């Protein structure tokens, strides 16, 4: 009997360890980013690093200001949200409330597919369709620009926004809608003035999730944004936080490479902030 007890305890221990591995991974990532990100920030000075407007690590007097990257990431994400959220939101309301079963199933399959397309494929299509057309339409020397990145990101965040919004719109109690209809509101009015407000924390979660996706995307953006460390402007080549990390990692060393780790740390802090906000909205939704 004692032996059996011991055996059960060992099994329990093994499962506990397996359960805690997730926590271990998060700690590993956090610690590695902090440990490798802090030295360069110390050396450059946090103010010069975060608010310096010039990134020129190979100059004779190297400059390590990442403000252009931060602003590009913020503007790029904001632009993608501005385009992607209304489209995704309207689609979600239509699919959840208006569409018949067949249409809904069809469009949902399409949305799932959109979510499954690898980011490099988005980048490739963007490179060959968006970039040349932007160049032609706006008559600028290079079409690889913030605008191209915003459009690609807007498309890439659509699936997350649509899916999360649909889930919360589906969960709105039928009684709310019936009451509104009985009071003389039309169906469309009911959907937008009763169902949508009732699902607002879920929709907020969808937006935050979209922000997270957009700010973290690297490869697709790398392929269409031109990758030059300019201050953000719609028709110029820009570099995001994510692409700043990946574009110089292969050949950098010393302080330059350490500064790239610091950029990753800044990106990580952004993401953690977004995650906390997301959890806040999701918890509210569950209540």
């Amino acid at each position, binding site marked *: 009997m004692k032996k059996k007890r011991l055996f059960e305890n060992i099994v329990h221990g093994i499962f506990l360890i397996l359960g805690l591995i997730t926590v271990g991974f998060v700690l590993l990532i956090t610690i590695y980013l902090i440990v490798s990100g802090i030295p360069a920030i110390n050396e450059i000075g946090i103010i010069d690093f975060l608010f310096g407007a010039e990134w020129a690590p190979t100059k004779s007097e190297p400059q390590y200001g990442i403000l252009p990257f931060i602003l590009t990431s913020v503007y790029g994400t904001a632009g993608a949200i501005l385009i992607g959220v209304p489209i995704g939101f309207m689609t979600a309301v239509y699919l959840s409330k208006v569409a018949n079963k067949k249409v809904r199933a069809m469009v949902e399959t399409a949305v799932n597919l959109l979510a499954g397309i690898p*980011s490099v494929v988005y980048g490739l299509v963007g490179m060959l369709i968006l970039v040349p057309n932007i160049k032609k339409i706006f008559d600028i020397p290079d079409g690889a620009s913030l605008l191209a990145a915003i459009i690609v990101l807007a498309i890439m965040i659509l699936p997350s926004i649509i899916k999360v919004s649909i889930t919360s719109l589906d969960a709105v109690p039928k009684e709310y809608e019936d009451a509104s209809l009985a009071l003389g509101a039309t169906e469309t009015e009911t959907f937008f003035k009763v169902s949508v407000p009732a699902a607002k924390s879920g929709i907020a979660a969808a937006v935050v999730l979209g922000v997270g996706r957009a700010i973290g995307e690297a490869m697709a953006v790398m392929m269409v944004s031109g990758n030059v460390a300019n201050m953000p402007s719609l028709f110029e080549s820009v570099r995001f936080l994510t692409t700043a990390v990946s574009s110089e990692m292969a050949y950098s060393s010393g302080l330059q490479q350490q500064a790239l780790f610091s950029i990753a740390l800044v990106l990580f802090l952004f993401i953690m902030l977004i995650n906390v906000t997301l959890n806040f909205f999701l918890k509210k939704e569950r209540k």
Partner: protein
Amino acid sequence: MNTNLKGKMKIGRKVYIGLMKFGMLLCTALVATLTLFLIVYILIKGIPNISWEFLSTKPSYLSDRIGILPDILNTLYIVITTLIIVIPLGVGAAIYLTEYANNKKIVAAIEFAAETLSGIPSIIYGLVGMLFFCQFMGLKTSLIAGSLTLVIMNLPNVMRTTQESLKTVPQSYREGALGLGAGKWRMIRTVVLPGCVDGVITGCILSIGRILGESAALLFTAGFAHAMGNMFEALTSPGASLTVALYVYAKEQGEFEVAFAIAAILMILTLIINLSATMVQKHFEKRRKV
């Protein structure tokens, strides 16, 4: 009655309703058209460039030929290795959460960690993977370092789908097994584990989809070589997955025909994975009802 009401509606209200209806239709049509366009465009541009030689050879400068067999094999090796490692970890974590955990704080910590992991962008996984697996653990840039990085990325996936399927195992089964004198481990092995097969399969399909599409996390951990070898040689040497190969061919070498051919292959694989995910889900739902 209803038509009467509509006749008396104020103009503003009518305009609002009309606009919203139009907006909904327009946006839905846009999303559907966009998806259709992407699929058709990629397949039309890509499929003509796919040939047997393209699929079955490695690139050779001598004969000026590009073949993607090494990239296909690398992707396959990465998928297999990642799944082999991530499934036990994910299933174990899920079993701990649903069967053992009685400390609320530990449960909250694990769930928070899983949520955090699924929110971290792949470029950060790539960076930490490079620092930890390639440099600290001395694995260098290799397929195994890439796979281990992807294990961390996909763990929340497998954990969550397994957890979902464990919830559908009736509590009475567990009580029955325990009541017949089975120890907890025996109960888990004979009652709980068979019940989570659904979740594991769904988790696998989701993970395969994610691994196939992943590029940023692999670029710095698995590298972009096109060498060929058997699985064990390949695991310890650098190699490009299909996505990374696409990126390198398109961005660095300007070989758009090759890039589109790979994109078409990835697209077809994505279609297959989505289809099988739906089918598996339907199958399991049916079985549960019976």
